[in-house]
């Protein structure tokens, strides 16, 4: 208990001492919080994006099978569904029809996909909200697409796709298979690709192996691989930003070093007086430790809080283009807030640790000075 009381007095003393030099400490805190804010924004944003991707891909099929012709993706004949035979572990398999359509009026590509579940009439479509924004249309309006042979077809918009899935459905148009064939002039009896659902994840690699044996001209794409790639890409983008921000961290370290070593005559006198009334070197070091700890904690919390607000309430407007990528029809989406222990620990190592290391030597230099030397 003695120990705790001692630390309490030291904290008490250092707070009153810091309040006496508001300007200097506030300046340091501002810079410190800014550094934490920048790094924390990057981390929170990428983490939330990763999570979003994971959630979105959660319900996507485990295997996508594409046919390759001369190394290029080609249409897959419907007969391949029978040709692949029954594979143990596959719960469902079906062919998909989809493609891209360039719309010159908004200079963007739409993804058109045939949806059997939605029971659409040949003249009805369901569109993603980014398209609705770009074209300024609402459900009930008509939207027209130019087909492969120059004809223009009009479709009535039945409804908009959910906001929750906007990250993937921003540019999506769901339509009837008849309309699809009319727009693209594709022959009957072929699909763009085939998707397979597998209930046991451990069987996925084996099933993929069987598929490539039975249908040698196809390539299976696994959901696990897509997830792994996303994970690596987001980590990598985050890493690149961190490397760029390393310069800022260095500047901060130099700044902290300078602040800690360039003590004013008044501060030096204060320490001189403390030592002459019986404080030991270790007491001064303890006191300075608390100064650093309070300053770091406060700046860390302020910076982290601001970053949290920036990312989850202001859509991370500062780093968005780098981390998210860009497109004409860009999805608008609200990230779900999440904080992760690994992030906080990493952030701590990038900010508090350099600060501490930079201030150890200057603080020690002050703490060991003789009282008479500074008071003279």
């Amino acid at each position, binding site marked *: 208990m003695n120990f705790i009381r001692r630390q309490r007095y030291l904290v008490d003393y250092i707070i009153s001492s810091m309040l006496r030099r508001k300007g200097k400490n506030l300046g340091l805190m501002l810079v410190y919080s800014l550094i934490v804010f920048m790094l924390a924004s990057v981390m929170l944003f990428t983490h939330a994006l990763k999570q979003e991707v994971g959630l979105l891909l959660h319900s996507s099929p485990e295997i996508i099978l594409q046919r390759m012709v001369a190394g290029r993706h080609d249409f897959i004949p419907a007969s391949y569904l029978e040709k692949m035979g029954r594979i143990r572990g596959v719960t469902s398999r079906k062919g998909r029809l989809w493609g891209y359509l360039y719309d010159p009026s908004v200079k963007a590509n739409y993804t058109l996909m045939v949806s059997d579940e939605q029971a659409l009439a040949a003249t009805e479509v369901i569109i993603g909200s980014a398209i609705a924004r770009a074209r300024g249309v609402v459900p009930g309006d008509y939207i027209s697409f130019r087909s492969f042979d120059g004809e223009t077809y009009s479709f009535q918009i039945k409804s908009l796709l959910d906001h929750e899935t906007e990250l993937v459905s921003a540019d999506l148009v769901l339509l009837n298979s008849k309309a699809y064939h009319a727009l693209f002039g594709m022959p009957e009896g072929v699909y763009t690709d085939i998707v397979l659902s597998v209930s046991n994840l451990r069987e996925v690699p084996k099933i993929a192996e069987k598929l490539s044996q039975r249908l040698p001209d196809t390539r299976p794409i696994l959901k696990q691989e897509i997830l*792994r790639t996303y994970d690596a890409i987001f980590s990598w983008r985050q*890493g690149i930003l961190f490397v760029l921000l390393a310069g800022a961290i260095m500047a901060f370290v130099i700044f902290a070093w300078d602040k800690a070593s360039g003590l004013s005559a008044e501060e030096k006198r204060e320490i001189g007086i403390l030592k002459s009334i019986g404080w030991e070197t270790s007491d001064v070091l303890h006191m300075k430790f608390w100064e650093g700890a309070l300053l770091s904690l406060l700046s860390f919390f302020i910076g982290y809080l601001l970053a949290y607000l920036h990312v989850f309430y202001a859509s991370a407007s500062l780093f968005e283009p780098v981390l998210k990528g860009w497109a004409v029809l860009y999805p608008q989406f609200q990230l779900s807030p999440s904080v992760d222990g*690994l992030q906080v*620990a990493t952030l701590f190592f990038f900010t508090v640790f350099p600060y501490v*290391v930079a201030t150890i030597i200057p603080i020690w230099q002050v703490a060991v000075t003789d009282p008479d030397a500074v008071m003279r």
Partner: protein
Amino acid sequence: MLLNPAIMALILVSVVVVLMLAMATGFALQVLRHWDIRSGSELQLRLERRTYLISTLMSWAFAAEVVSLLLFIYNAESMSGQFVGAMCATGVLNVNPWGWPTLFMKIALFFGGAIWLILNALDNQGYDYPLTRLKYLLLLLIMPLVMAEAYLQLRHFLELSPDVITSCCGSLFSSDAKGVAAEVTSVSPAVSMWGLYLSGTAVIAAGLFYSRVKRGSAVFSLLALIAFGFALVAIISVLSPYIYEHPQHHCPFCILKSGHGFAGYLLYIPLFFATASALGVGVVGPWHHIASLTSAVNTKGRQLVHVSVGLFILFYLLATVYVMSSNLVMQGVWW
């Protein structure tokens, strides 16, 4: 290499710690050559002042090492999604031959650092700093460990390539495989359970004996090391299957996952700190005879023993609770 912030942070920490230790080592050489507490020369005065800097540096360096040990495991855990075949930290550590040595080196550093800090705290209590030379000699011994750790970790991260197909806990910690992990896994549950509780009783008894009689610090430390070993064996062979409620799953890393209530952290943290404080008792105890340290050895030794015994008891209680509350029943199979 994967450019991931946690990896960058770990490399940054290891580099900074090596620099800090290098500074401390240069100073340690000076101390070993010139330290003379009776002299009033300017050099001696400078050395005495500098010891403050070195102990502050070392405290921070070791604190950073402790956090980096946790971060290393946590990071390995979270990267397991990026490697084919990896499901937890084991898979990531298996990606290249540097993973496991890095982990073991970090654990060794944790204990080495704890011993140094305890010795340093004790030395500062005596007015004539009687252990200074020993302390800095020890520092010279720790330095190569720190450098080796930094090197191993760097190699591990540089050679992490995502196209390697790694093998995970299912194949490493299975009793049919070969190697140390498999040997430990195949220890019979009854034997390891007896070992766990017997060594636990022995270490707690030795601790209570030391705190009463102030003798037997070395025995206590030794027993603590043995108990530590048995505890690790028991975690792999018995405790993890009970936590997973699956008799064949022995991984000591999957218990760190949130899906198992972070049980691993609750078990490992008390166990590691209990062992470190017990080693501290062994380091503090022998200096009873130095006049300027007698009372410091008494108070410090008692504090450390209490912390150590308390944490050991906490560990055994938690282990028992995990086994008792598990839905896995192995009556008639294991017992």
